[in-house]
Protein backbone atom coordinates (compact mmCIF):
# COMPACT_ATOMS: atom_id res chain seq x y z
CA UNK A 1 0.00 0.00 0.00
CA UNK A 2 1.41 3.42 -0.92
CA UNK A 3 1.85 6.19 1.66
CA UNK A 4 -0.91 8.17 0.00
CA UNK A 5 -3.36 5.25 0.08
CA UNK A 6 -2.50 4.64 3.74
CA UNK A 7 -3.18 8.27 4.57
CA UNK A 8 -6.51 8.14 2.75
CA UNK A 9 -7.48 5.03 4.67
CA UNK A 10 -6.58 6.65 7.99
CA UNK A 11 -8.55 9.77 7.08
CA UNK A 12 -11.47 7.52 6.17
CA UNK A 13 -11.27 5.92 9.64
CA UNK A 14 -11.23 9.33 11.33
CA UNK A 15 -14.21 10.47 9.28
CA UNK A 16 -16.05 7.25 10.23
CA UNK A 17 -15.43 7.95 13.94
CA UNK A 18 -16.78 11.51 13.68
CA UNK A 19 -19.84 10.43 11.68
CA UNK A 20 -20.75 7.61 14.05
CA UNK A 21 -20.33 9.69 17.23
CA UNK A 22 -22.54 12.42 15.72
CA UNK A 23 -25.05 9.76 14.62
CA UNK A 24 -25.29 8.39 18.16
CA UNK A 25 -25.90 11.83 19.63
CA UNK A 26 -28.26 13.07 16.91
CA UNK A 27 -31.05 10.64 17.76
CA UNK A 28 -31.81 11.90 21.25
CA UNK A 29 -32.60 15.55 20.69
CA UNK A 30 -36.31 16.35 20.89
CA UNK A 31 -37.37 18.60 23.73
CA UNK A 32 -39.28 21.45 22.06
CA UNK A 33 -42.77 20.01 22.50
CA UNK A 34 -42.26 19.64 26.28
CA UNK A 35 -41.70 23.42 26.64
CA UNK A 36 -44.90 24.14 24.72
CA UNK A 37 -46.86 21.51 26.68
CA UNK A 38 -45.80 22.95 30.05
CA UNK A 39 -46.38 26.52 28.85
CA UNK A 40 -49.96 25.64 27.93
CA UNK A 41 -50.35 23.75 31.24
CA UNK A 42 -49.22 26.86 33.20
CA UNK A 43 -51.76 29.01 31.31
CA UNK A 44 -54.56 26.48 31.95
CA UNK A 45 -53.71 26.36 35.66
CA UNK A 46 -53.54 30.17 35.92
CA UNK A 47 -56.86 30.61 34.10
CA UNK A 48 -58.58 27.86 36.12
CA UNK A 49 -57.34 29.08 39.51
CA UNK A 50 -58.10 32.75 38.72
CA UNK A 51 -61.53 32.33 37.17
CA UNK A 52 -62.91 29.54 39.41
CA UNK A 53 -60.90 30.30 42.58
CA UNK A 54 -60.33 26.55 42.88
CA UNK A 55 -57.46 25.66 45.25
CA UNK A 56 -56.60 22.38 43.57
CA UNK A 57 -56.39 23.86 40.06
CA UNK A 58 -52.58 23.94 40.06
CA UNK A 59 -51.89 20.44 41.49
CA UNK A 60 -54.52 18.84 39.22
CA UNK A 61 -53.23 20.63 36.09
CA UNK A 62 -49.59 19.82 36.88
CA UNK A 63 -50.33 16.13 37.54
CA UNK A 64 -52.41 15.98 34.33
CA UNK A 65 -49.53 17.57 32.37
CA UNK A 66 -47.12 14.98 33.87
CA UNK A 67 -49.43 12.12 32.84
CA UNK A 68 -49.88 13.61 29.36
CA UNK A 69 -46.13 14.06 28.93
CA UNK A 70 -45.45 10.45 30.05
CA UNK A 71 -48.10 9.25 27.58
CA UNK A 72 -46.61 11.23 24.69
CA UNK A 73 -43.09 9.98 25.54
CA UNK A 74 -44.39 6.39 25.63
CA UNK A 75 -46.23 6.81 22.30
CA UNK A 76 -43.18 8.38 20.65
CA UNK A 77 -40.95 5.55 21.90
CA UNK A 78 -43.44 2.95 20.64
CA UNK A 79 -43.61 4.66 17.25
CA UNK A 80 -39.95 5.52 16.76
CA UNK A 81 -38.48 2.45 18.45
CA UNK A 82 -35.48 2.25 20.77
CA UNK A 83 -33.34 5.39 21.15
CA UNK A 84 -30.19 5.32 23.27
CA UNK A 85 -29.63 7.94 25.95
CA UNK A 86 -26.54 10.11 26.18
CA UNK A 87 -24.93 11.28 29.42
CA UNK A 88 -25.86 14.84 28.48
CA UNK A 89 -29.51 13.81 28.10
CA UNK A 90 -29.44 12.18 31.55
CA UNK A 91 -27.87 15.30 33.12
CA UNK A 92 -30.48 17.60 31.57
CA UNK A 93 -33.34 15.25 32.51
CA UNK A 94 -32.02 15.14 36.09
CA UNK A 95 -32.10 18.95 36.32
CA UNK A 96 -35.70 19.18 35.07
CA UNK A 97 -37.02 16.25 37.10
CA UNK A 98 -35.41 17.64 40.29
CA UNK A 99 -36.91 21.05 39.56
CA UNK A 100 -40.38 19.57 38.96
CA UNK A 101 -40.31 17.54 42.20
CA UNK A 102 -39.00 20.52 44.21
CA UNK A 103 -41.69 22.79 42.80
CA UNK A 104 -44.46 20.25 43.40
CA UNK A 105 -43.39 19.54 47.00
CA UNK A 106 -42.65 23.15 48.00
CA UNK A 107 -45.65 24.85 46.41
CA UNK A 108 -48.09 22.17 47.62
CA UNK A 109 -46.61 22.33 51.14
CA UNK A 110 -46.89 26.13 51.13
CA UNK A 111 -50.41 25.99 49.70
CA UNK A 112 -51.87 23.34 52.00
CA UNK A 113 -50.24 24.88 55.10
CA UNK A 114 -51.92 28.19 54.25
CA UNK A 115 -48.64 30.08 53.80
CA UNK A 116 -49.21 30.84 50.14
CA UNK A 117 -51.79 33.60 50.64
CA UNK A 118 -49.67 36.09 48.69
CA UNK A 119 -49.60 35.07 45.03
CA UNK A 120 -46.32 36.96 44.59
CA UNK A 121 -44.56 34.30 46.69
CA UNK A 122 -45.93 31.64 44.34
CA UNK A 123 -44.62 33.48 41.28
CA UNK A 124 -41.22 34.12 42.91
CA UNK A 125 -40.74 30.45 43.90
CA UNK A 126 -42.02 29.00 40.60
CA UNK A 127 -40.07 31.44 38.39
CA UNK A 128 -36.83 30.94 40.36
CA UNK A 129 -37.05 27.15 40.12
CA UNK A 130 -37.85 27.13 36.40
CA UNK A 131 -35.04 29.66 35.88
CA UNK A 132 -32.63 27.38 37.74
CA UNK A 133 -33.49 24.38 35.55
CA UNK A 134 -33.12 26.50 32.39
CA UNK A 135 -29.75 27.82 33.57
CA UNK A 136 -28.48 24.32 34.44
CA UNK A 137 -29.58 23.00 31.06
CA UNK A 138 -28.05 25.97 29.22
CA UNK A 139 -24.70 25.51 30.99
CA UNK A 140 -24.63 21.80 30.12
CA UNK A 141 -25.54 22.54 26.49
CA UNK A 142 -23.39 25.72 26.35
CA UNK A 143 -26.44 27.49 24.92
CA UNK A 144 -26.75 31.24 25.51
CA UNK A 145 -30.34 31.46 24.26
CA UNK A 146 -31.58 29.13 26.99
CA UNK A 147 -29.57 31.06 29.57
CA UNK A 148 -31.43 34.17 28.38
CA UNK A 149 -34.66 32.28 29.20
CA UNK A 150 -33.31 31.66 32.72
CA UNK A 151 -32.62 35.40 33.08
CA UNK A 152 -36.21 36.19 32.01
CA UNK A 153 -37.54 33.76 34.67
CA UNK A 154 -35.31 35.26 37.37
CA UNK A 155 -36.42 38.76 36.32
CA UNK A 156 -40.06 37.68 36.73
CA UNK A 157 -39.19 36.38 40.23
CA UNK A 158 -37.56 39.70 41.19
CA UNK A 159 -40.46 41.75 39.77
CA UNK A 160 -42.94 39.66 41.77
CA UNK A 161 -40.95 40.38 44.97
CA UNK A 162 -40.70 44.15 44.49
CA UNK A 163 -43.79 44.91 42.36
CA UNK A 164 -47.51 44.66 42.98
CA UNK A 165 -49.43 41.39 42.63
CA UNK A 166 -50.64 42.50 39.20
CA UNK A 167 -47.11 43.35 38.02
CA UNK A 168 -45.84 39.99 39.27
CA UNK A 169 -48.62 38.13 37.45
CA UNK A 170 -47.95 40.01 34.20
CA UNK A 171 -44.22 39.28 34.47
CA UNK A 172 -45.04 35.58 35.05
CA UNK A 173 -47.38 35.45 32.03
CA UNK A 174 -44.76 37.13 29.81
CA UNK A 175 -42.04 34.73 31.03
CA UNK A 176 -44.29 31.74 30.23
CA UNK A 177 -45.01 33.10 26.76
CA UNK A 178 -41.38 33.88 25.91
CA UNK A 179 -39.57 31.00 27.63
CA UNK A 180 -42.10 28.19 27.17
CA UNK A 181 -44.25 28.90 24.11
CA UNK A 182 -41.92 30.95 21.88
CA UNK A 183 -38.75 29.09 22.94
CA UNK A 184 -40.53 25.71 22.60
CA UNK A 185 -41.85 26.50 19.11
CA UNK A 186 -38.40 27.74 18.06
CA UNK A 187 -36.87 24.49 19.38
CA UNK A 188 -39.45 22.39 17.52
CA UNK A 189 -38.66 24.21 14.24
CA UNK A 190 -34.94 23.67 14.82
CA UNK A 191 -35.47 19.97 15.56
CA UNK A 192 -37.67 19.55 12.47
CA UNK A 193 -34.96 21.18 10.32
CA UNK A 194 -32.29 18.94 11.87
CA UNK A 195 -34.43 15.84 11.20
CA UNK A 196 -35.00 16.94 7.59
CA UNK A 197 -31.28 17.49 7.08
CA UNK A 198 -30.58 14.10 8.65
CA UNK A 199 -33.07 12.45 6.29
CA UNK A 200 -31.47 14.17 3.30
CA UNK A 201 -28.02 12.95 4.32
CA UNK A 202 -29.18 9.38 4.96
Amino acid at each position, binding site marked *: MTANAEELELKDRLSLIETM*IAEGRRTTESYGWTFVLWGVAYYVAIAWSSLCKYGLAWPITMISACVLMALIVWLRQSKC*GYKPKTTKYRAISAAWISMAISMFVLLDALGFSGKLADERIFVAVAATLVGTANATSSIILKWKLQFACAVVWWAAAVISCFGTGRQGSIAFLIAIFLCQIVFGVYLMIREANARRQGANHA
Partner: protein
Amino acid sequence: MPELPELNPVIHGKLRLALLSLLAGVEEAEFTWLRAKTGSTDGNLGAQLAKLEEAGYVTVEKKFVQRKPQTLYRMTEAGRAAFLEYVQALKQMLGGSIGD
Protein backbone atom coordinates in the same frame (compact mmCIF):
# COMPACT_ATOMS: atom_id res chain seq x y z
CA MET B 1 4.60 7.58 7.85
CA PRO B 2 4.40 4.84 10.55
CA GLU B 3 2.99 1.44 9.54
CA LEU B 4 -0.69 0.54 10.09
CA PRO B 5 -0.02 -2.37 12.53
CA GLU B 6 0.81 0.22 15.22
CA LEU B 7 -2.90 0.87 15.51
CA ASN B 8 -4.89 -1.43 17.79
CA PRO B 9 -6.01 -4.25 15.43
CA VAL B 10 -9.14 -5.02 17.49
CA ILE B 11 -10.40 -1.47 16.99
CA HIS B 12 -9.04 -0.89 13.47
CA GLY B 13 -11.63 -3.13 11.77
CA LYS B 14 -14.14 -0.81 10.08
CA LEU B 15 -17.30 -2.24 11.65
CA ARG B 16 -15.73 -2.58 15.11
CA LEU B 17 -14.50 1.03 14.89
CA ALA B 18 -18.00 2.18 13.87
CA LEU B 19 -19.50 0.26 16.81
CA LEU B 20 -17.09 1.73 19.36
CA SER B 21 -17.66 5.23 17.93
CA LEU B 22 -21.42 4.81 18.28
CA LEU B 23 -21.07 3.47 21.82
CA ALA B 24 -18.71 6.34 22.73
CA GLY B 25 -21.51 8.84 22.14
CA VAL B 26 -24.23 7.08 24.15
CA GLU B 27 -24.61 5.41 27.55
CA GLU B 28 -25.75 2.09 26.10
CA ALA B 29 -27.21 0.89 22.83
CA GLU B 30 -29.48 -1.92 21.72
CA PHE B 31 -28.41 -4.51 19.14
CA THR B 32 -31.11 -3.49 16.64
CA TRP B 33 -30.14 0.19 16.93
CA LEU B 34 -26.48 -0.64 16.25
CA ARG B 35 -27.56 -2.79 13.30
CA ALA B 36 -29.64 0.07 11.85
CA LYS B 37 -26.85 2.63 12.28
CA THR B 38 -24.13 0.46 10.77
CA GLY B 39 -26.27 -1.23 8.11
CA SER B 40 -24.68 -4.54 9.06
CA THR B 41 -26.17 -8.05 9.03
CA ASP B 42 -27.13 -9.80 12.29
CA GLY B 43 -24.38 -12.40 11.88
CA ASN B 44 -21.54 -9.99 11.13
CA LEU B 45 -22.65 -7.54 13.81
CA GLY B 46 -22.91 -10.30 16.42
CA ALA B 47 -19.45 -11.60 15.52
CA GLN B 48 -17.81 -8.17 15.71
CA LEU B 49 -19.53 -7.34 19.00
CA ALA B 50 -18.36 -10.70 20.37
CA LYS B 51 -14.76 -9.77 19.46
CA LEU B 52 -15.12 -6.42 21.25
CA GLU B 53 -16.64 -8.19 24.26
CA GLU B 54 -13.81 -10.73 24.25
CA ALA B 55 -11.28 -7.88 24.29
CA GLY B 56 -13.09 -6.37 27.28
CA TYR B 57 -14.11 -3.25 25.34
CA VAL B 58 -17.88 -3.71 25.63
CA THR B 59 -20.25 -5.43 28.04
CA VAL B 60 -23.52 -7.03 27.10
CA GLU B 61 -26.76 -7.15 29.07
CA LYS B 62 -29.78 -9.18 28.02
CA LYS B 63 -33.19 -8.35 29.42
CA PHE B 64 -36.89 -8.28 28.63
CA VAL B 65 -38.76 -5.00 28.11
CA GLN B 66 -42.54 -5.36 27.73
CA ARG B 67 -42.00 -9.10 27.14
CA LYS B 68 -39.62 -8.40 24.25
CA PRO B 69 -35.96 -9.47 24.47
CA GLN B 70 -33.47 -6.61 24.46
CA THR B 71 -29.69 -6.92 24.13
CA LEU B 72 -27.86 -3.84 25.35
CA TYR B 73 -24.20 -3.05 24.75
CA ARG B 74 -22.17 -0.61 26.82
CA MET B 75 -18.58 0.57 26.37
CA THR B 76 -16.29 -0.34 29.27
CA GLU B 77 -13.62 1.91 30.78
CA ALA B 78 -10.98 -0.25 29.08
CA GLY B 79 -12.85 0.16 25.81
CA ARG B 80 -13.02 3.92 26.20
CA ALA B 81 -9.30 4.12 27.03
CA ALA B 82 -8.38 1.93 24.05
CA PHE B 83 -10.66 3.95 21.77
CA LEU B 84 -9.12 7.27 22.88
CA GLU B 85 -5.63 5.79 22.46
CA TYR B 86 -6.57 4.67 18.94
CA VAL B 87 -7.89 8.12 18.00
CA GLN B 88 -4.73 9.77 19.35
CA ALA B 89 -2.53 7.33 17.41
CA LEU B 90 -4.58 7.98 14.28
CA LYS B 91 -4.17 11.73 14.65
CA GLN B 92 -0.43 11.38 15.26
CA MET B 93 -0.04 9.24 12.17
CA LEU B 94 -1.91 11.78 10.09
CA GLY B 95 0.32 14.48 11.53
CA GLY B 96 -0.54 18.08 10.80
CA SER B 97 -3.04 17.27 8.05
CA ILE B 98 -5.98 17.32 10.48
CA GLY B 99 -7.13 19.54 13.31
CA ASP B 100 -8.38 18.49 16.77
